[in-house]
């Protein structure tokens, strides 16, 4: 198959030239941030780094890191580097009180983000002859808007379906001959199962490719989706903090995701010391936005554990590749595509009058995440009426759903029934074996 590129010059640029481009952009970006973002200026001043100390990408390690805590402290405008009148959009992470990330975009920021998504779609074989069904959520979540924009740029006939309503997804897919679908891998698996139940064989399904991201998935899951839908399944990665999906994307080789490193510079660091590790080392992935205007994060710690590789790729792209993330350095869980911190569950429990004695159990059944929350009841909450216990479980599940946007199964338990090791309860049991 002939390889398609959206921006061939950049995607196949010799490594030395990419580095030169990155250096030029970084010098300008650091100056822009220092002049316009007081929060980061203070961090640089504390570290004794001036913009003129950053002469190229080799000086990047001198700059301070940004973390999710910084984003929270600076919420909402503290990291904004452009006047609001120059901004045209916000996107936000899934409804998470206290940890909500609001990212701002100028039109140029939107353009470069959509370019990145267009590269991902073309790397998956997309052209203007394709019908691209975007079944990521639309709205504050970056998935729908990002791939929608990328699909337009490639010239695909774009189906802005958003997520859910599987029957309608299938109807449009079959009636309009969708050739590329973009959604979370678990939703792709679900659509695949539904098609199978309706008697469709892989060869009856018009799809040829899928672009799946926003949650961790395994090679086994890839094979299963590919077999059920009769497609090639491509991984895509990104985060709201850096723009959204398309920061990195997979090509036909399916051995990791190319990083759009003309826009996003990746480092791997030791999560404990912050020291930059050489290529091929496993560590925490850190991104620097090289040319975003409104929300240009420098050295943002993603908390994803990952490995980078510049090994020659058969697709012809010279862009460095990242492996699938292998874990997290914090306790964040991604359940059904939504970021979940145990502390959020704790916040809901306290607000609803429960003691924070709980356990989150996540598993994956039929390629869909299950989400159970066990909660110990306090003595004064106990009632002899089963109907009341069930009503309390339902109310608590609803409160968690309002906080997170996803529905848990809540199980109220007697006090001290959640196992504690060395007096400390295990808060999360993740049985999904994703990494």
């Amino acid at each position, binding site marked *: 198959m002939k390889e398609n590129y959206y921006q061939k010059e950049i995607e196949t640029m010799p490594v030395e030239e990419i580095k030169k481009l990155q250096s030029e952009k970084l010098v300008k970006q650091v100056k822009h941030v220092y002049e316009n973002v007081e929060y980061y200026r203070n961090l640089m001043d504390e570290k004794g780094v001036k913009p003129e100390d950053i002469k190229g990408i080799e000086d990047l390690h001198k700059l301070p890191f940004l973390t999710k805590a910084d984003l929270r402290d600076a919420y909402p405008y503290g990291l904004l580097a452009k006047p609001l009148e120059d901004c045209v959009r916000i996107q936000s992470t899934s409804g998470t009180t206290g940890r909500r990330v609001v990212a701002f975009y100028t039109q140029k920021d939107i353009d470069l983000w959509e370019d990145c998504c267009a590269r991902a779609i073309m790397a998956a074989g997309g052209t203007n002859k394709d019908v691209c069904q975007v079944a990521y959520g639309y709205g504050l979540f970056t998935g729908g808007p990002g791939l929608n924009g990328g699909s337009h740029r490639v010239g695909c006939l774009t189906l802005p379906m958003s997520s859910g309503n599987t029957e309608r997804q299938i109807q449009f897919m079959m009636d309009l001959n969708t050739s590329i679908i973009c959604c979370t891998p678990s939703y792709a698996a679900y659509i695949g199962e539904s098609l199978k139940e309706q008697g469709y064989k892989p060869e009856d399904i018009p799809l040829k490719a899928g672009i799946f991201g926003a949650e961790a998935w395994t090679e086994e899951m890839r094979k299963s989706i590919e077999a059920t839908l009769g497609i090639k399944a491509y991984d895509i990665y990104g985060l709201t903090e850096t723009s959204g999906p398309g920061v990195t994307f997979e090509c036909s080789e399916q051995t990791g995701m190319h990083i759009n490193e003309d826009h996003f510079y990746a480092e791997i660091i030791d999560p404990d010391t912050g020291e930059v590790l050489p290529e091929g080392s496993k560590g925490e992935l850190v991104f620097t936005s090289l040319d975003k205007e409104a929300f240009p994060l420098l050295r943002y710690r993603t908390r994803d554990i990952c490995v980078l590789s510049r090994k020659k790729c058969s697709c012809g792209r010279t862009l460095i590749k990242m492996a699938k993330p292998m874990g997290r350095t914090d306790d964040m869980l991604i359940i059904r595509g939504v970021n979940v911190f145990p502390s959020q569950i704790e916040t809901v429990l306290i607000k609803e009058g429960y003691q924070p004695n709980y356990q989150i159990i996540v598993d994956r059944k039929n390629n869909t995440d299950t989400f159970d929350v066990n909660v110990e009841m306090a*003595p004064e909450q*106990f009632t*002899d009426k*089963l109907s009341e216990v069930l009503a309390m479980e339902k109310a608590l599940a609803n409160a968690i759903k309002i906080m997170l946007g996803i529905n848990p199964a809540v*199980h*109220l338990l*007697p*006090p001290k029934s959640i196992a504690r090791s060395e007096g400390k309860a295990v808060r999360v049991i993740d049985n999904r074996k994703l990494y």
Partner: protein
Amino acid sequence: MAIKQLAVFVQNKKGTLVSVTDTLAKNNVNLRALSIAETADLGILRLIVNDNDTAVKALSAEGYLIKTIDVVGVKIGDAPGKLTEALAVLDKADINVEYLYAFMTRTEKHAYVVLRVEDNNAAEKVLEDAGFHIITEADVDKL
């Protein structure tokens, strides 16, 4: 006049019930009646025993969540249709029964029904007015 029922909150897993009854046995507490409501995760045991204080102390010491609740105990004839008669009285008075369970004794030709309702006094009054005998703690002790 109501009688005392103990409610014990337990996890629905193997060995729980035997551990509760074993604790009671070791403390010489005799069970008069027992009913269980359960889901896949949890169980609520409702007990009528001969010695509430000892039972509460022993089970609490084992870490069980336990609550003492007043319920209505009513004596009914041991014959077909007798329970229906009692329930019809409550229904007519618009008294909702949350749950109930019944037990027999060795000696008397009666059954005893334990009723969990919102307003014990109201339930007892309509049942007594209809000629039913409401049982007391003293009655339970004599069983």
